[in-house]
């Protein structure tokens, strides 16, 4: 499958239909769509994704009461990167108590449709599934004090009915591992 054009701010996000680590299928859109949805491409083996993970978890916990839906997607080729296998994903979710589903994009079709580039790669969608923020969680994967502030700002703006003050940043991380 060819890589689609990059999913950019203002675009309607492609749909998703992917199983989580327990086999439950999650879709985008879903009936009664959330006021905002965060979709983040991540994985198990990338130091950037790991360094930002706790901050993303905290964003999910902090914004769930405000109706924000959060989905994490792993599209890496598990044959060449066994740490990104479904089994390894499941182990991680079980041992770390994730507050959001960890979706397995085995065919990589979702990553290609979204043209996701790296892990982590964050998208924030509005209630109409339009992309309102795209990029990194914050400016420095090594500084937990940053607190995923770019993502939080985007959500705060969106939930207040404004366009995010910073709609696009450069995603930083490991390349998605294509088959």
């Amino acid at each position, binding site marked *: 499958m060819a890589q689609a054009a990059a999913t950019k701010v203002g675009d309607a996000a492609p749909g998703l239909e992917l199983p989580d680590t327990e086999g439950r299928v999650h879709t985008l859109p879903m009936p009664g769509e959330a006021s905002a949805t965060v979709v983040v491409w991540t994985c198990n083996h*990338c*130091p*950037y994704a*790991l*360094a930002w993970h706790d901050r993303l978890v905290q964003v999910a916990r902090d914004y769930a009461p405000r109706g924000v839906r959060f989905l994490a997607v792993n599209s890496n080729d598990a044959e*060449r990167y066994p740490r990104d296998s479904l089994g390894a994903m499941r182990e991680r979710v079980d041992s770390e108590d994730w507050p959001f589903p960890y979706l397995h994009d085995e065919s990589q079709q979702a990553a290609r449709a979204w043209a996701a580039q790296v892990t982590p790669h964050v998208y924030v969608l509005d209630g109409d599934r339009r992309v309102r923020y795209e990029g990194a969680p914050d400016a420095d994967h090594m500084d*937990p004090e940053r607190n995923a502030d770019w993502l939080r700002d985007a959500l705060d703006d969106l939930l207040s009915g404004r366009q995010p003050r910073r709609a696009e940043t450069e995603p930083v*991380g*490991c390349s998605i591992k294509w088959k």
Partner: protein
Amino acid sequence: MTHESPKVELLWWQGCPSWEQALEILREEMRVVGIDPASVEVREVRTDEEAGRWGFVGSPTIRISGRDVQPPDGEPAGLTCRVYRLRDGRVSPLPDRAELRKTLANAIQGGGE
């Protein structure tokens, strides 16, 4: 008493963006301990076959006198990104700078670890 400078190598793979920063840090620390920063051998790893042949377990890999600055814990060779643990426990795509300096200094003294 003079000492021969240790061999310093940095192996990298294009799939991880941290290698240039790692090289910058490595050269800074080499300068600090008195090793010519231009002497670092930088090698790109392009294929799984090369990764296997060179025992490359992720980018960036730094070896001083042939010894990995954070010896891998059973990770298989392959084209992947290296996960380092800093002294404070944080995960990082870069090695701990203080550990790097210590390893370089020890290598100059011929003491290894």
